[in-house]
């Protein structure tokens, strides 16, 4: 028991720390996302009035779960239209009559439920934007309004997206479970993709409420930690967490006082988050010790080489080029090949970089790919081909959609020595 203000803090902390776990268990017990969500909301509202009056219960989780389950029973009794309400009520009454050992129980049960929840929210039968929204809403602590602001859509649109996703889960009977071993690797990759999408949405240089976008990064990292806790023996799960931590360490330094984007080579390295870097490197080591390399670990290893370098010049570009090569063999893409060319350009000189770039320059599908022209311009400038560099800068400027980026390219073009 404590001061009313202290109790409010306890409720808030319980909400932050216990909500997703309780919700995960209740969804399994009531078999309905919406009903479980409403009932958990009811239970926290009840805690706000009950805990200051009667004292904080020993196990806040057990209290919230039992209360939420009773609210679910009440709601189900009123809900006459639900087809299987009789059997559901019987099951809930049976659970309620138990002495709740399973609810209190060890972390295994709670963890299993949270894992079920993650896999269901990220089910491939849901559209990717719905997976992202549902994951943030049920497992993260974000409200519908916050998610809507982060994704720059009206709140009503986001609310509709969440309602539709929950309705599809119910109507199409998407199972609430961890997929069997045979399907697990593919489904886990899908979950990681959703988490990384959430992170990138927060990390990307696009517009939007910066505060909320920072929260998206934090939520993605929190989900990453949860996955490492729940699936500890998967190297890529750890690789993704390491990757997000190592990127996030640089988040503050990517924006200057005026709010403009600062590229990696001109960031103030003293503004990088040491704690995040140390944790990221430690988790990456743990991932690599499992000896099952994958794209997230390779990207994290590249990010690690950048953050370990005391200055842009001291960066181990040769190893970064090798890592991009390995990444390209696992998941071939022109974006990766372009990054490899840039790294080779620093490691072995601009001519070597231009040679890697040649097949990309010849690919008509990439003719309008702005980063290709910007990278080529830099390499040509360093190789001393001033007219070639000027042409490539002009092409990159023409294709640029971002004012900050365009200004930077114009500065470089103007800085070329007179031909």
């Amino acid at each position, binding site marked *: 028991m404590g001061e009313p203000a202290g109790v409010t803090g306890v409720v808030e902390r319980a909400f932050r720390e216990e909500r997703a776990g309780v919700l995960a268990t209740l969804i399994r017990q009531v078999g309905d996302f919406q009903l479980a969500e409403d009932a958990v909301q009811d239970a926290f509202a009840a805690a706000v009035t009950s805990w200051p009056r009667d004292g904080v219960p020993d196990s806040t989780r057990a209290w919230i779960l039992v209360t939420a389950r009773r609210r679910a029973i009440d709601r189900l009794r009123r809900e006459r239209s639900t087809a299987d309400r009789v059997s559901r009520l019987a099951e809930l009454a049976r659970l309620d009559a138990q002495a709740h050992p399973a609810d209190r129980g060890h972390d295994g049960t709670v963890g299993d439920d949270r894992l079920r929840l993650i896999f269901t929210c990220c089910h491939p*039968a849901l559209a990717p934007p719905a997976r992202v929204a549902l994951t943030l809403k049920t497992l993260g602590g974000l409200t519908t309004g916050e998610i809507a602001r982060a994704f720059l859509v009206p709140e009503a649109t986001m609310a509709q997206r969440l309602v539709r996703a929950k309705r599809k889960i119910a109507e*199409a*009977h*998407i*199972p609430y479970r961890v*997929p069997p071993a045979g*399907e697990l690797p593919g489904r886990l990759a899908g979950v990681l993709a959703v988490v990384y999408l959430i992170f990138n949405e927060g990390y990307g240089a696009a517009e939007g409420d910066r505060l909320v976008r920072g929260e998206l990064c934090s939520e993605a990292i929190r989900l990453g930690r949860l996955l490492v806790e729940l699936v500890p023996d998967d190297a890529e799960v750890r690789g993704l967490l390491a990757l997000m931590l190592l990127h996030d360490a640089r988040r503050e330094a990517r924006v200057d006082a005026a709010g403009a984007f600062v590229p990696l080579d001109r960031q103030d390295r003293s503004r990088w988050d040491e704690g995040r870097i140390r944790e990221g490197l430690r988790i990456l080591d743990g991932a690599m010790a499992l000896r099952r390399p994958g794209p997230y670990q390779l990207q994290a290893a590249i990010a690690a080489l950048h953050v370990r370098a005391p200055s842009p010049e001291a960066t181990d570009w040769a190893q970064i080029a090798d890592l991009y090569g390995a990444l390209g063999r696992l998941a071939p893409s022109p974006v990766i090949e372009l990054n490899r060319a840039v790294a080779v350009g620093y490691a072995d000189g601009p001519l070597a970089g231009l040679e890697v770039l040649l097949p990309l320059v010849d690919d008509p599908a990439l003719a309008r790919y702005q980063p290709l022209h910007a990278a080529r311009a830099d390499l040509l400038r360093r190789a001393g081909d001033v007219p070639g560099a000027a042409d490539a800068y002009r092409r990159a400027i023409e294709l640029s959609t971002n004012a900050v980026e365009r200004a930077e390219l114009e500065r470089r073009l103007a800085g070329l020595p007179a031909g």
Partner: protein
Amino acid sequence: MPQYMLLMIQPVEGPPKENWAEQSKQWNQFHQDLVDSGVLVANYGLAGADAATTVRVREGETQITDGPFAETKELLAGVVLVDVPDLDAALAYAAKVPSVSYGAVEVRPLWGG
């Protein structure tokens, strides 16, 4: 258990012209698997779009047109109704439909199922 209709969508020009014997074997095997696992409720193959007639009633007047309801490059070629525990099971059967490698299978739960 919920029931799902597997709507088998195929290109208008029909299945690939080669390997008829192999294709026929695959359909027989697929059907046998559904029967053996006890999930099959019903299955029907449909005659081609050339045989289709579309009916609409507008302001009390019946309009009859030759052909399917919409001119598309793919059309419904058949349906299979299965009785399975959940969507994952239905999707697994959908992935085994022989025509899925050149067409598509839309999986729809029965309403209220």
